[in-house]
């Protein structure tokens, strides 16, 4: 009989609506990160580096890019005879077909997948965190405590604690109380959304709570296990971990990579991050190009200036163009003479010649103040920006825009253009 000690279930079905136009056409875990990677590469690489070779990836929202990226798992060595990576979308059954209604519900609907591997432990991961973690060490800790559930947790500044699930522990790190996004946090130990369950405990809880609408780990499963007197422990993690759920934190996490010695170091030999790289050639830096404090992916051609930016693979920066404090993703072309300032430009975008992106003064977003509040111009994938237009700060653009969309050739700060179409 097949026996895997620990298998991982990776939740990658969420839209990540707080990333605005970046996730209009792709799921958050498939969004580019750090000039070459996609967000899901981090948990997937952590799995294989930790010796977890069986990973179920739960997908639901816009899974095309994700499916194409994961394939049969070759880049992560997850193409295995037994186990490996399996993409698990919601499926139809003879009665009661459902979308995944919550994180735990998604896992519940794939009980059969997990049973196949006869695991002793199940690792629950989410596909939207940037970090390096050895899950094997966490498993050792789980075993040493004779725990039923272990939750990875880290200290956060107390003023931010109300954004997280907060754990209150005793001196042996056993969790005594659990508060989901409390107004008055009593501790600053935040749950990272990474759990190890002993299989039987997880299975029982999932079955017991199978009728719970929108069944969620933080809201339902953990409180249930706690109420049932299970041994729940906090595993304190001290390394780099970043939830890139908002445009602000996404931009910040990218920018941290260009520090001279970044806190999150991709250049270490140990603990490599793997990704599907389909662009092989080196980058070309032209005679008059200028680059300062940036990272740049494969196959990119730079004829202009790049300052304090993260630029992906296969990008072209035209002559005289300036990219400053920005993220430019794979395959995008910045036309000659264009200026891009404090912007996130998604994949395969065309920015016309002499266009000016990110000019003027900050203004609050007229589109969605909660999503677009970080003073960043956000341009969705395959968008087209015509030549010579001026685009204000804190704006959002998606689709194929033409000169007519810009009154007097200008888009005011805080404004937005959301259209269909784009680069094919």
């Amino acid at each position, binding site marked *: 009989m097949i026996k895997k000690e620990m298998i991982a279930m990776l939740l990658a079905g969420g839209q990540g609506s707080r990333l605005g136009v970046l996730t209009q056409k792709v799921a958050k875990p498939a969004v580019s990160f750090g*000039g*070459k990677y996609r967000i899901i590469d981090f948990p997937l690489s952590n799995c294989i580096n930790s010796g977890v070779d069986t990973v179920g990836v739960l997908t639901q929202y816009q899974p095309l890019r994700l499916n194409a990226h994961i394939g049969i798992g070759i880049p992560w060595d997850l193409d295995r005879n037994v186990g490996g990576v399996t993409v698990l979308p919601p499926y139809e059954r003879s009665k009661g077909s459902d979308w995944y209604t919550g994180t735990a519900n998604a896992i519940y609907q794939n009980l059969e997948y997990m049973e196949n591997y006869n695991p002793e432990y199940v690792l629950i991961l989410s596909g939207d965190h940037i970090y390096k973690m050895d899950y094997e060490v966490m498993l050792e800790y789980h075993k040493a405590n004779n725990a039923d559930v272990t939750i990875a947790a880290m200290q956060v500044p107390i003023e931010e604690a109300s954004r997280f699930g907060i754990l209150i522990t005793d001196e042996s790190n056993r969790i005594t109380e659990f508060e989901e996004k409390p107004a008055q946090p009593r501790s600053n130990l935040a749950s990272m959304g990474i759990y190890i369950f002993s299989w039987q405990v997880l299975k029982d809880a999932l079955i017991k709570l199978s009728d719970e609408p929108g069944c969620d780990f933080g809201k339902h499963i953990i409180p249930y296990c706690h109420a049932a007197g299970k041994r729940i422990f906090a595993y304190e993690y001290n390394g780099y971990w970043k939830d890139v759920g908002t445009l602000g934190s996404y931009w910040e996490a990218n920018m941290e990579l260009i520090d001279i010695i970044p806190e999150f170091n991709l*250049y270490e030999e140990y603990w490599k991050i*793997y990704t599907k*790289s389909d662009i092989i*050639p*080196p980058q070309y*830096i032209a005679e008059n190009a200028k680059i300062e404090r940036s990272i*740049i992916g494969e196959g990119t051609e730079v004829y202009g200036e790049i300052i304090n930016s993260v630029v992906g693979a296969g990008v072209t920066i035209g002559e005289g163009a300036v990219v400053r404090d920005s993220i430019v993703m794979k395959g995008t072309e910045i036309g000659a003479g264009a200026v891009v300032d404090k912007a996130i430009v998604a994949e395969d975008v065309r920015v016309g010649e002499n266009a000016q992106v990110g000019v003027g003064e900050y203004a609050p977003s007229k589109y969605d103040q909660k999503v677009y509040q970080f003073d960043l111009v956000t341009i969705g994938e395959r968008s087209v920006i015509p030549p010579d237009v001026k685009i204000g700060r804190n704006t959002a653009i998606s689709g194929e825009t033409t000169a007519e969309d810009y009154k007097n050739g200008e888009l005011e700060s805080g404004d937005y253009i959301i259209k269909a179409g784009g680069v094919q």
Partner: protein
Amino acid sequence: MRAIGIVLAGGNSKRMRELSNKRAIAAMPIAGSYRSVDFALSNMSNSHIQSVAVLTQYNSRSLNEHLSSSKWWDFGRKQGGMYVFTPTITAESSDWYRGTADALYQNLDFLKKSHEPYVVIAGGDCVYKLDYGKVLEYHIEKKADITVVCKDMGPEEDVTRFGLVKTTEDGRITDFEEKPMVATSNTISCGIYVIRRRQLIELIERCAAEDRYDFVTDILVRYKNLKRIYAYKMDTYWSNIASVESYYKTNMDFLKPDVRHYFFKEYPEIYSKVDDLPPAKYNPGATVRNSLVSSGCILNGAVENSVLFKKVYVGNNCIIRNSVILNDVYIGDNTVIENCIVESRDTIRANTTHIGTPDNLKIVIEKNERFTL
């Protein structure tokens, strides 16, 4: 595709000087991200050849490491695949490959067991893109026994290190001279051949019976009047890298927009082993002009008109000019490198100066320890 492929990758050349001390020519790194053998292998894959044998002999460790998986060139298939044949001791023979024909003879089983009617033979030391399917069409149209891919070189080029051919107007080869003292033609053989499989087996067996071992001198030159040998002229980029000067020049060619566009942007692509290195990083102080920079590089100094392979570290205040820096080289602060080729995995200490001239490139091999306790 109705052909199998054979890549001759066993060779070594004194003209590579110290660069061939640690690897076969076919494993020489090219254009930042590739190795020489990638071009022949990618051409085979892109020509839909499914079954490919790579014959290796000289110092094949780094080549074998590069060929450790066939998936990079899409050969990992049930139908066909990539085979690496290194000389082995068998009941009949305990010899090394004594020449290219002998290498084929020692692997005659591969030829005999295949069912495709044709064979494409290519060297592993040339940089080019070619659809072998087109060569095969030409071969069939001309009812040729052997087709040799040829190229007209410019008058300024020294062609005496190649095989030189003369042809009739129809393209039939009437004269073939291998590495002559004095050039009598400027049409060279690119070392790429198409031949019917049974014909090849027959020629190779006859060669072996006569104790002859070389494909060029003992088959092409000897049979030129007996067999119908045709020249297929290619007119796109082709470069042989088997001398230090041509190796350097080939790498520098990639700084030209047309060459770069042809290899990097035009379909089909050249494939290579993926190394999973992070993006290149430019720290304050880095000034880079007209250069190729590969993944995993960290730059703190000045780089001009150079090709940096993967994982090169350039320290503060360095000046790298007109040079080729192979993969995984660490260059300490305040170092000056001009007109050099720096061998891979080398560590250059701070405050070092290495200066060559365009006519006499310096090959830098310093076997320093990178980490001292």
